């Protein structure tokens, strides 16, 4: 699975993306975030405030309960501030 990180999520994790293979039990976005937060202190810091985290699966915004299914690309970032 390709993970992408943007803005301060990227800065705290220390990379713009990584390819990871989550354990079989990780079936939802919320479960993925829980698992990612165990990988390093940077991941934990980036994901500590779940209310400030947004996720897109294969370029579509989803909520924490969304299933990962056959997702190829999961992007994790703060609320957007464009315009």
């Amino acid at each position, binding site marked *: 699975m390709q993970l*992408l990180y*943007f*803005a*301060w999520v*990227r800065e705290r994790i220390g990379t713009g993306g990584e390819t990871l293979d989550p354990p079989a039990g990780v079936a939802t976005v919320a479960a993925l975030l829980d698992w990612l937060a165990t990988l390093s202190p940077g991941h934990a810091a980036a994901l500590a405030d779940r209310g400030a985290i947004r996720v*897109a699966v294969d*370029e579509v*915004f989803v909520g924490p309960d969304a299933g990962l299914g056959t997702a190829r690309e999961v*992007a994790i*970032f*703060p*609320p*957007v*501030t*464009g*315009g």
Partner: protein
Amino acid sequence: MITTRVQPEAFDSGIETAALGAGRHDIGAVVSFTGHVRADAGLVSLSLEHYPGMTERQLAAIAAEAEARWPLLGGTVIHRHGRLLPGDAIVLVAIASAHRGAAFAAAEFLMDWLKTRAPFWKREERADGSTAWVAPRTSDDTAAARWEQT
């Protein structure tokens, strides 16, 4: 019909807007919105990060939604990324329609949705050397919520 572009290069709002009406006799109203970088509180620059691929996809989806809601006769949406300076134009939304009501509504809708649904993030660089990611504004969420269909 609405063209969308994501680019680091500067654009000319006047030229882009005028192009919508050129040679057309069915357009009665052209509304354009240009967003500029303000030099609030010692801001030196504003850097826009985006999610390549999803950004283009979201802009196209937002444009299609506007076309479905109002009878439009053309439009251009341009959003820049990269490092911008005070006064620089960040975003253009230009809309043409037969009548002004649809043109104003679609332009406001597009801006509200761009602010809340397009994957861009702004980082401010200040005169003291510090940087900070811009926090989302509640007023933008409120503005976007106007367009939710119940």
